[in-house]
């Protein structure tokens, strides 16, 4: 209470100087909760108004109920827990595969004449294609099990990582390259001790994109190729017009993608520790 009063006083006395917008001044916890409440309120109004069919928009309470029963079901075990585990495993495998493919091809494209001249145009053309069209190919080749989902997830997720890896390797600081040359470093040494560490910030940026795309990719795979994952459960719920469950599962999948992203971001802060205080080495 008193601290809020103090804040109010300070705000008052510095009003003329304080050019920050209102969103920068109020505590983030307050603004985020407030915004969430507004959205939920609008949702509730819209869902109960009769303007929108409940098959399109269930009430927040119904969606929350579905989420709660999903959580209980997962806790108790059974088909839904298995579905969640399957999708998590698929997404993890897809992510790992995407990292191997993305970093690997990134290296080839950046470091070899063959990669740069021959491989790159094909990869770019491949990337320009809507990747979902390859889903039937993966299903035909790998069946309706998790293999085809992992393949599609990895396929969708690896390209941004390839681009970032190649860009990172190609933009190694000129001064540092010159230092390595003056120290008579071999090509392998330069790659391992200079280019690879220099490109880690880029690789992590690519991994963050890939982490989210891997989840998206396997869910698309499940929508198109069946199986027993949570994406498939969502699709079944949709087919049954059980929209409350669609919203609940969609939320769970969003949380999953976010957790993947957060895990990579956490690892990034650990590994690329020197990036935090900006501008010490880049100068102007």
């Amino acid at each position, binding site marked *: 209470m008193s601290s809020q009063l103090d804040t109010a006083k300070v705000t008052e006395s510095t009003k003329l100087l304080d050019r920050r917008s209102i969103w920068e001044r109020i505590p983030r916890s307050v603004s985020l909760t407030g915004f969430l409440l507004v959205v939920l309120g609008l949702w509730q109004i819209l869902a109960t108004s009769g303007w929108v069919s409940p098959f399109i928009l269930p009430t927040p309470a119904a969606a929350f109920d579905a989420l709660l029963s999903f959580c209980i079901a997962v806790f108790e075990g059974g088909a839904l827990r298995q579905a969640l585990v399957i999708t998590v495993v698929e997404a993890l495998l897809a992510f790992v595969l995407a990292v191997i493919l993305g970093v690997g091809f990134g290296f080839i494209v950046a470091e070899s004449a063959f990669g740069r001249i021959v491989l790159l145009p094909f990869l770019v053309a491949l990337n320009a294609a809507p990747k979902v069209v390859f889903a039937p190919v993966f299903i035909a080749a790998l069946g309706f099990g998790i293999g085809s989902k992992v393949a599609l997830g990895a396929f969708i997720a690896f390209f941004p990582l390839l681009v970032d890896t190649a860009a990172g390797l190609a933009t190694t*600081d000129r*001064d*540092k390259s*010159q*230092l*390595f*040359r*003056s*120290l*008579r*470093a071999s090509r392998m*040494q330069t790659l391992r*001790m*200079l280019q690879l*560490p220099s490109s*880690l910030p880029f690789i992590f940026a690519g991994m963050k994109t890939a982490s989210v795309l891997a989840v998206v990719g396997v869910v698309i795979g499940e929508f198109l190729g069946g199986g027993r994952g949570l994406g498939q459960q969502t699709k079944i719920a949709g087919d049954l017009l059980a929209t409350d469950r669609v919203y609940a599962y969609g939320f769970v999948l969003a949380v999953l993608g976010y957790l993947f992203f957060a895990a990579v971001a956490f690892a990034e802060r650990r590994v690329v*520790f*020197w990036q935090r*205080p900006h501008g*010490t*080495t880049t*100068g102007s």
Partner: protein
Amino acid sequence: MDSPAVSVEDVTKIFNTKSGAVVALQDISVTLAAGEFISLIGPSGCGKSTLLNIIGGLTSATAGKVLVHGASVTAPPEEAGMMFQKPVLLEWRTILSNVLLPIELKSGKRESTRHTERAMDLLSAVGLADFAAKYPHELSGGMQQRAAICRMLISDPQLLLLDEPFGALDELTREQLNLQLDRIVEGVHKTSILVTHSISEGTFLSDRVLVMSARPGRVIGVVDVDLPRPRTLDMMQTGEFLTLTNRVRLLLESGHDFGDEAISA
């Protein structure tokens, strides 16, 4: 022993750029005896860095040749240690392992750990003993540059090529580092070439100051500095020092193309 430490013979460097050929250096000839310290001073863009890079084997000459200890330079010579205008430390390595980098590249990780004690001695000599385990971003610019001196010296190079190593530092730090450099070089009799924009820095550290003209870069004059060694900061106050710096200044002005651009701008 008889052959000079460095001999630059009629070196010309032409850069082919989109807007035509740029003659960066024209018929440069310089000879350094072992243990000699010279400075290159001249207007910006006159080819000082280019000359240093040619001697260091990082750039090839268009014509002429460079010999280091009698051997023609085609790649960075083993006996050369270079220092650049920026510290160029690897952010992901501690200061100690940055200093050990040249050994690690040359002889492997195992051998480099055997040089830890020597690296620590060097770091102590420049007042960085307490910072060995820190990372570059935790050090100031001047401290980073001192770490770079240690890195250059760890492999005990016989030839030091210094491209404006202290150019980005404030006057006082610069004097301190120059003094430290003078002590280091004096103690072990290393042959050194220093590129600098500072007349007093060049004069203070050198046996000879070579003054270069604006493009095409040529050596237009040499000032011999026969002040006793080791040099002290007091010497910079003497009339003798002043006379020498004035000679350098006059040469510099005579070769300086102040440029139509500067006037019309």
